[in-house]
């Protein structure tokens, strides 16, 4: 008797728990994923709206804060007609050219220096103090010295940016090298690898995720050094454009330049993340 009453009850019991578990477990998680993005979008919209509103109500003089519409129309004008003798595209090309030339220089010098720091005691003894000395100095501080030494030409501008990029590249490389698993190196050596082969086939690829992170930080540092580098005797470049505009109180070009710099930095970050995913798909999956 007790057996039959038990078997009759069971299905209704499980049915109830099923009905309960579904609404409890799923929607909360889903809502959380969506909400973070919605909040970000809403934040941007609110900032834009506040900006537009304060311009419309003329709370602030347009010399201090031009309206979004003014900035946008200036953007179109500078694209087509240019500002201080160059179109926006030419300014962007000049700046990107400097940043990437500096990046190449920083990689050529920084990666070997980072390897030396990570691999050998001698290397660390030589380069660590130099980098630690260089790293905290703001670019504006060494800019005059670079100009005295190397003049006001293009190499000086690239050099200033490259110095800012050097430390992140070298230090990330070094920390990547130090993080290489000892077992991987031992495994390679026991398979017959020479020291040089260990560096080429084990240490470099192992450190690659860290090196790429370094490049990302370096690009950020270089991009933010750009304005300083273009302070002196530049005729083109986003930093130069902003400074010239500031001298004539053309605030809408200043704001527009800032937004362009921010957008390009965002795009670069996006690209390098894609490169990372393509080059080091194993990162974080070991």
């Amino acid at each position, binding site marked *: 008797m007790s057996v039959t009453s038990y078997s009759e009850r069971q299905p209704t019991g499980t049915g109830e728990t099923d009905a309960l578990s579904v609404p409890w477990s799923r929607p909360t998680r889903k809502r959380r994923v969506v909400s973070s993005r919605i909040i970000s979008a809403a934040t941007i919209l609110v900032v834009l709206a506040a900006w537009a509103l304060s311009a419309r109500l003329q709370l602030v003089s347009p010399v201090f804060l031009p309206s979004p519409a003014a900035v946008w129309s200036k953007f179109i004008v500078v694209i087509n007609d240019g500002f201080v003798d160059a179109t926006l595209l030419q300014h962007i090309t000049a700046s990107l050219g400097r940043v990437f030339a500096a990046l190449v220089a920083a990689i050529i010098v920084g990666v070997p220096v980072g390897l030396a720091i990570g691999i050998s005691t001698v290397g660390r003894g030589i380069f660590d103090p130099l980098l630690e000395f260089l790293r905290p100095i703001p670019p504006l501080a060494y800019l005059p010295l670079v100009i005295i030494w190397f003049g006001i030409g293009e190499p000086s501008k690239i050099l200033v940016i490259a110095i800012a990029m050097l430390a992140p590249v070298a230090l990330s490389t070094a920390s990547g090298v130090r993080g290489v*698993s000892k*077992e*991987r190196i*031992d*495994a*390679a*050596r*026991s*398979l*017959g*690898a*020479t020291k040089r*082969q260990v560096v080429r*086939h*084990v240490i470099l*690829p*192992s450190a*690659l995720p860290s090196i790429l992170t370094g490049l990302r930080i370096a690009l950020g540092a270089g991009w933010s050094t750009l304005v300083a580098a273009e302070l002196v005797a530049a005729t083109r470049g986003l930093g130069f454009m902003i400074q010239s505009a500031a001298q004539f109180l053309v605030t809408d070009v200043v704001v527009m330049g800032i937004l362009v710099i921010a957008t390009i930095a965002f795009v670069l970050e996006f690209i390098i993340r894609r490169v990372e995913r393509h080059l*080091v*798909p*194993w990162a974080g*999956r*070991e």
Partner: protein
Amino acid sequence: MPHLVLNKVSVHYDGQPAVENVSIDVAKGDFVVLVGRSGCGKTSLLNVAAGLVEPARGAATIGGRPITGPGSDRAVVFQNDALFPWLTARENVAFALRLRGVPQAERARRADELLALVKLDGVGDKRIWELSGGMRQRVGLARALAAEPEFLLLDEPLGALDALTRERMQTTLLDLWTAAQVGVLMVTHGIEEALVLATRIVVLAPGPGRVVRTFETGFSRRYAAGEPIRAIKADPAFAAARGDLTDAIFEGEAA
């Protein structure tokens, strides 16, 4: 026939003795297993044989020549597989051949053969992180065999695997050992694993590490001769040996 010999080896770490006066002789075709409680210096001895650690006293030789560093005549397989995630399974296996400058096509052919040998046909193009723990260790074994070593040094190669995979891998190890005609020196924590695999078991005791007993066991030879592993484990002699080995490992220690 080459021998891998550790002759009265002592290993010190920071002046502290970790292993004192241990001698081990592995002939080609032997399967020597080191067992013992933690801190008895099993892995230190393996590293001396691999050439990764220099003994404070005593000598390590292979075929009469002193061991001065790691070499492809003694390939090591680690507990943590130590595979290269930037390479595919096939490229991992072919690593030793690449170091020697073997041409690409030949490398791939040889690697596929070895993958087939460890029963991983068709996974050559897979990435390392797409493989299970057991498959990774198989790739690790194939990679070690690609160097055509005379000796395999295995540092708890099955330690990180789950119990079921582990049992399967034990017979795989025996199959490889028979097929590749190598001498094996292996470290393990598993008592049954030691009995299944070894031709000789060396029991070490800690403080500092020293040999307390050596067992000559024949269970792996019986497997190599064709007896199924289940029948071997069901043999009363296996249970008796298991008891003896357990006693030897925990001798002089209060539970």
